């Protein structure tokens, strides 16, 4: 009996062969977030994940895509059917976006990267293609390996192909900005904004939905400040902070001279780096045990540490 999820795609099997079973190896994407998790080991052999959209079923709101595909290419194909994913627009490859696991600035409207991957196929430390999760939009079939792989920086497996959840692009998207509104009050007033950004002075809001609903939200905003329509979000600074959403204001002095904070989410793009976050000893030990289980010879992306960020 062949398992339903057994992999026969020669492209994935060839990728597994290329990764092989020995020697340090890592996937090189588009290098947009190459520095995350610290410098990789210099002797690491770099490989590229296969590319291409394998199966897109708009009516199911799922897409099967190889991890070397760029997010831009994926989103271009999806937008033809009025859909998108939670992967950040600024990301390079699909595999890179998932391996780094950083949410974009639209997380309120488009969802979290961690919730986007329904099924993952990755090459293991011993050079085999492994599948975790399942192809349907809802599934609880055993342990959630997709969750483990997203954000793991390629240290427990090298992502080859994924099935992603897509979501509909709303009828209208409108960005508005105000220099005299309180972003925290705004967040409590607007039901489902796509994004609420704040740089300490100016507040940007992405309103999304049906035209009459967006008009109504915009009218509601008028009582909270003076607003102008703008083209889109501001430029983001290069250092990314991750905070509990309630700690943005208390940390404002640490962000340097410029920052943009995602209100209600806690991501901050600042011009200074976030001090390294303390991780409790028990959690560190558990992380190490996970690594030992999945990569006992430490050959997958050695040097990089998903905990060091």
């Amino acid at each position: 009996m062949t398992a339903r999820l057994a992999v026969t795609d020669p492209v994935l099997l060839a990728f597994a062969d290329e990764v092989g079973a020995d020697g340090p190896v890592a996937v090189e994407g588009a290098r947009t977030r190459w520095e995350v998790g610290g410098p990789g080991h210099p002797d690491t052999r770099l490989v590229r994940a296969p590319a291409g959209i394998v199966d897109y079923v708009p009516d199911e709101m799922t897409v099967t895509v190889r991890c070397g595909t760029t997010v831009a290419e994926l989103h271009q194909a999806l937008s033809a059917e009025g859909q998108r994913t939670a992967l950040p627009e600024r990301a390079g490859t699909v595999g890179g976006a998932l391996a780094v696991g950083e949410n974009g600035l639209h997380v309120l409207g488009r969802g979290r990267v961690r919730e986007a991957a329904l099924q993952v196929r990755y090459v293991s430390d011993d050079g085999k293609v492994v599948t975790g999760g399942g192809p349907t939009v809802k599934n609880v079939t055993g342990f959630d390996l997709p969750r483990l792989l997203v954000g793991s920086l390629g240290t427990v497996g090298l992502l080859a192909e994924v099935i992603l959840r897509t979501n509909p692009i709303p009828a209208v998207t409108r960005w508005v900005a105000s220099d005299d509104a309180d972003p925290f009050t705004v967040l409590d007033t607007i039901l489902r904004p796509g994004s609420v950004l704040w740089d300490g002075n100016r507040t940007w809001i992405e309103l999304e939905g049906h035209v009459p609903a967006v008009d109504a939200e915009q009218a509601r905003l008028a009582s909270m400040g003076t607003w102008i329509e703008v083209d889109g979000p501001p430029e983001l600074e290069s250092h990314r902070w991750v905070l509990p959403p309630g700690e943005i204001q208390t940390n404002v002095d640490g962000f340097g001279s410029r920052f943009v904070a995602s209100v209600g989410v806690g991501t901050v793009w600042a011009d200074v780096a976030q001090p390294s976050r303390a991780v409790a000893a028990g959690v560190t030990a558990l992380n190490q045990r996970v690594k030992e289980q999945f990569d006992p010879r430490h050959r997958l992306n050695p040097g990089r540490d998903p905990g060091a960020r």
Partner: protein
Amino acid sequence: MAGLLSSVRKRLSSDALRTGRNGGQTDPVVAELRAALAPDRVRYDGAERTVLSHDASIYAGGVAGPVCFPLTTTEVQAIMVIAERHTRNVVPRGAGTGLAGGAIPLGAPIVVSVTRMNEIEQVDTANRFAWVGPGVVNLDLTRHLTPLGFHFAPDPSSQQVCTIGGNVANNSGGPHCLAYGVTNAHVLAVEVVLPNGDIVMLGGLEDEPAGYDLRGTFVGSEGTLGIATRVAVRLTPNPPAVTTLLLSFETIRDAANTVSDIIAAGMVPAALEVMDQRITVAVENYVHAGYPTDAGAVLLAEVDGLAESIEIDAHHIAALGHKNNALHIRVAADEAERAALWKGRKTAFGAIAQIAPDYYLHDTVVPRGALADVLDKIYEIADRHDLLVMNVFHAGDGNLHPLLVFDAREPGVVDRVHQAGAEIVRASLDAGGVLSGEHGIGVEKQAYMDEFFTAEDLAHQNRLRQAFDPGCRTNPGKVIPSGHSCADIQALRSVPRDVWA
């Protein structure tokens, strides 16, 4: 519900709990557990151990060892340390409403019931989270939050009794998870006591905690990775407006096609639930919710959000209903009518009691475009096995819940139920579906795991398991099938020496 199935359990039981044969021996860990907790919170009498030897599934209860009712994380830690010292297994347990046998004890483990850890510790509406004990009942949390303008989005039909800890362990869903997502999307952090006694905080109030997403992997792990002792849940604002439509159809195929068309049109309604005629009649007789009993199927569609947008979506849904030959489309006129419709949907399982004493509720997911064909197949399978099947399900995400209704006193019927069940699972997989949408694998779906996954895939699931629980002592014998798992499931069928079974 529990009463409904207890008769089946007794008759299906291959190793039913044998009480009353103490033989003068007591379990050696009992005294230590009593010293660590309190004498009255470590039970070792037949009654408690019988009740906690099964859950709401059709599966025969196992054998419970000592039953503990801790009040604090420290007490749970003490239990884990004692268990480790004696190499004893541990099974976490919430309300016991699980339908896959996840909470049934195998191998006389220490049963850790967290139902008394039921405090809502902190609610922070400004930052939209709450810290709760794992024993908090799902609906109690939402009732607590309602006056504050919020709710906990996962709403399993069992929400009046099931616990947040159980929801976390099973990654539970509910009708409104279509738009809002299942439990994993609503859990920020989980405090866990690991099998080695370590207390760890998985996840955190920040969106992307450092390290692997261990919070995400813990959710849905069915009690095999440790015991959740505190949970930070996300609060969802109550929508300002809600519209509930009831669409009736001549055939369930038309209802299923309407669902596919709604999703294909790019809408994500708050809920899309379908009931076939048989279950609708049962519900109507039971709670008089106002469902039409002459239609082949009904679709309960709900849209929520801003009034301006739900009006547009409601019109669109109605249009797609008409396109698929809807007989009748009704919009709930007020909150009372809406509540009555939902009460009908959520008590569907209770309504079955009038038809036959026993039922077996399945749970698979298929691509939404395959719903109509798989439903045809399910009716055909049930007919062939001379069984009555009813369908009430989370249609929006393709999550089928075929309900086989029977009387276990009828000779041979239980075997037919199991055969039909197996065929239903395979029909779902044939259509590109998966083994479970929300009830989990437990012991129920274990046998199918290696039809779905390869040996390598299962070995990797087991790697995760071993990182948390190297001795395989927390809820052993669940999820991963024997041969791929660290625990020898057969060995769990026997009871350790010195244990009063």
